[in-house]
């Protein structure tokens, strides 16, 4: 087990270095000189430009610059935003909880609806119910969520006036950030109005971001359940005279869940990609919104650092899923 762990951890090191190299290249490939970009449209005297380039080490060979960049990352320094002049890491830290809150809510939504959908479809295989659920699921998987988000806003916010259009909480409330999760912080403040406001802001983005995971979970659960329901131990359980529901939930679902959880864990990347679109539509102040804004403002240090952080996050989650799976299933440890 120890060697399995060690090998997996060591294996991601070259990937990580490659990821840092890509993010390093980004700033050099983007049109325009990093210093000139920093000074924007105001321009800068050529003399000063040479000095600043020398100070920043931009006149050195590329490999030396990469070495410096690696050392900088190792110190946890990802550079400063060109627009706000704050460290990229600090900005990420304050924005990430918003993305995490939205992502967790979306996964919760997807699991709570998707699991029962998949189980019911598998148990009632071939029925109209099965076809209906799977039709919904394949439609969900094909959904352009940027359009879906706008349609949901059009119907529920603009048309019916049920929910707010954007943001995390109403302007009337000021919530001291404590956990960074608006819902928890609002709860903590003992203001029921604030909790309701936070919830109503959260609900539409959750549905939009959760749609594709919901479709994936429903389909995977169904096929995984179908496989498990054909196993001998299910027949044994039924033969023992256990009730149908107990066999399905306790015996079958527990085993069917393993592949579902694994595939889901490996889809953080997809989820974060969806978060970019969802946050843009709902002006949700998270990492995705931040990255898109950084492109529009030509804030390349933010794009560079943010991309690196998001990729590292995906890598860590994948490693975690991998290790957990190895822990649960000794056969793949080798």
């Amino acid at each position, binding site marked *: 087990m120890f060697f399995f762990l060690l090998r997996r951890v060591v294996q991601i090191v070259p990937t990580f270095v490659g990821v840092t190299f890509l993010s390093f290249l980004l700033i050099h490939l983007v049109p325009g000189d990093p210093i000139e970009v920093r000074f924007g449209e105001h321009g800068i005297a050529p003399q000063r430009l040479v000095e600043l380039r020398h100070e920043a080490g931009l006149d050195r060979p590329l490999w030396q610059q990469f070495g410096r960049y690696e050392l900088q990352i190792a110190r946890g320094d990802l550079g400063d935003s060109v627009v706000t002049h704050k460290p990229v890491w600090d900005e990420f830290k304050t924005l990430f909880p918003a993305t995490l809150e939205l992502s967790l809510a979306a996964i919760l939504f997807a699991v709570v609806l998707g699991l029962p959908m998949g189980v019911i479809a598998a148990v009632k295989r071939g029925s109209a119910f099965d076809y209906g659920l799977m039709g919904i699921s394949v439609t969900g998987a094909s959904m352009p969520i940027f*359009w879906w988000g706008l349609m949901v806003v059009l119907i529920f916010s603009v048309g019916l006036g049920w929910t707010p259009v954007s943001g995390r909480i109403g302007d009337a409330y000021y919530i001291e950030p404590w956990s960074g999760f608006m819902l928890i912080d609002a709860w903590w403040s003992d203001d029921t109005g604030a909790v309701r406001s936070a919830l109503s802001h959260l609900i539409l983005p959750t549905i939009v971001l959760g749609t594709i995971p919901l479709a994936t979970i429903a389909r995977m659960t169904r096929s995984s359940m179908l496989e498990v329901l054909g196993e001998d131990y299910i027949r044994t359980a039924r033969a023992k005279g256990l009730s149908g529901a107990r066999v399905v939930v306790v015996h079958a679902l527990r085993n069917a869940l393993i592949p579902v959880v694994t595939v889901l864990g490996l889809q953080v990347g997809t989820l974060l*990609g969806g978060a970019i679109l969802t946050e843009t539509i709902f002006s949700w102040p998270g990492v995705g919104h931040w990255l898109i804004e950084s492109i529009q403002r030509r804030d390349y240090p933010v*794009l560079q650092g943010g991309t690196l952080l998001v990729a590292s996050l995906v890598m860590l989650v994948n490693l975690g899923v991998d290790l957990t799976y190895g822990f649960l299933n000794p056969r793949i440890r080798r």
Partner: protein
Amino acid sequence: MSALQGTAAVNPPANAPMPGSLRLFWRGFAENRGAVLGLGLMLLLLVVGLLADVVSPHSPIEQFREHFLVPPVWQHGGSLIFPLGTDDVGRDILSRLIHGARLSLLIGLAVVVLSLSAGTVLGLTAAFAGGTTDIVIMRLMDIVLVFPSLLLAIVIVAILGPGLFNAMIAVAIVTLPSYTRLVRASALSELARDYVTATRCAGASTLRLMFDTVLPNCLAPLIVQGSLGFSAAILEAAALGFLGLGAQPPTPEWGTMLAGALQYYQRAWWVLAFPGLAILVTVLAFNLFGDGLRDALDPKLKR
């Protein structure tokens, strides 16, 4: 020879007498109603896309100055001249959607061809060369996979500059690893077979072994992946268009149309609803078709 049958299976001729395995494939495929629906929608899109200039009532970029934001025909104030209404500068939405269909199919085709051929070469090279080459190629693919695909596409477009062509390159790069991995995995399992050894002993060159002997036998999963890749490519390119990084206005690309609608969609639902619906239906068609292909080509699922 089974490989040739695999390729032919993509386009079952309508009523010509079918050879045995093709008929068998078609029977399996036709059993799946969703897949047939997908195929039908695909053919419809193809016809509409090919005949865009003939079918569309107006030019996709012509601005009718007296007809801003005309609602669809069935709504009060709508007219038959603009069946699905007009946008904020008086362009006919139906005509734009029809030309958008052509564009989307082209995007899907270009991205899949680019990504699939590059992925095939990389995957075969990795499988045949083994050792360091294999490790380097696959590690590179791992690095690409670590980035959320939309984010990487955004970064690539930020480097290359916004535009439809660059967006297609970005999406092709992002989807490259799935093809490379697939080709490598199936090539490796074929390499262990006797017929490969036999061909090698008969003196076939490595290139011949790669493309003539092994590749045809890896085609079935590639075809499935390719048809699913079509929908992924259309979706990602539309997302880039929506973010203002793909096709630029006035190109009638569906995602770009949605981006243009952002300012006023709350007053005119039709400028929002139809382009998105077009994306959804197209992506759905390719997904249904791809799923059907997989079920029909996968011997494990055959009853």
